[in-house]
């Protein structure tokens, strides 16, 4: 799935918690634990169903010492990974409006 054209939200079925600089996520239906590092936690906190991959990458570049290109590549990669693990789900399209 092309992550740049999709808005993502956290899977509402998950339990998650920030602890130290990490985020621990539990998938209750699969009894699986996932862990995000510092930058992954930063992105996770900012995934709210309203920000695109570009907007998330811009936030990442503003807050960490990383170039915009690297931030975008890393953000897209993480979104794809989290999507494949069902940690994220796409925001349902409304009214046929595309972004």
């Amino acid at each position, binding site marked *: 799935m092309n992550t740049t054209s999709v808005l993502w939200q956290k899977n509402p079925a998950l339990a998650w918690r920030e602890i130290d600089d990490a985020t621990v996520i539990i998938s*209750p*239906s699969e009894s699986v634990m996932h862990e995000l590092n510092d930058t992954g936690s930063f992105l996770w906190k900012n995934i709210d169903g309203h920000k695109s991959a570009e907007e998330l990458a811009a936030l990442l570049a503003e807050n960490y010492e990383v170039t915009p290109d690297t931030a975008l590549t890393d953000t897209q990669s993480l979104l794809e990974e989290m999507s494949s693990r069902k940690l994220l789900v796409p925001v349902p399209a409304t009214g046929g409006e595309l972004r």
Partner: protein
Amino acid sequence: MESRSILNAPDANSRGARKQQLELSIGCVPFRLQMSDRQLFRAAASRYAAFAAAAARPIHITLDGYSKSESQPAEFRYEFEGAALRASSQETRFDGVRNEYALDSLLRVLLSWKLATRHGFLLHAATVVRAGKAYVFTGRSGAGKSTVASLAPMGTVLTDEISLLRFENREWRAYGTPFWGEFRAAGANTSAPVRGLFRLVQAAENRVTPLRPVEMLRALLPNVLFFSAETEANRRLLKILSDAVDSISGYGLAFRKDAAFWEVLPK
């Protein structure tokens, strides 16, 4: 001719056997089990003798009895080898329990679920009390929980298999449970404030290493007994565990199989 009907009292089943009640308290969570199987009752009464206690407003569990609320939606259900637990807002039922082992399994499952609303959890861990403080040793099967328990001549073994940790009166306390491990003895029905959580690794030397909260949480999660797939229940559990690793000191404990490992533990 005068009509006449016979009404069975609620405590009588179809064979007329009177139900017996067993009252327990595990980690200050009170249960009242009601059953008509006399053999099972005797086995359960013996198994849980150290935890027998009457308390106000216990969680009432009916075994293989008449259901008052079959149509009520279950808040939690669990099946294990033909035995089934069903908890609704009206009642908690165990069905298909044929022996004490099945009863023990369902009781563990129910307790783990009830603790999530009482700021506590069950953990695969041995707990030993020394000088009034509880040392909790966790690890997967084979990590050495029973070995640690057997190497505690100066302490009281609360359990060598399943520990109950609960936050109350502004401190974390570890409780004994009647759930047995290889030690083959019911845990002690007492509690103590937790001195530390220890992730067990068998090694050639005894060494203790502080763990960060996230490292301790990583060690705890695979060893926590929890059986609900419901999101809110898991969120509650994760909050409880996060609170626990934030406020209890966590350590990695490399130990060889002798009692000298106690010398490297924090006092």
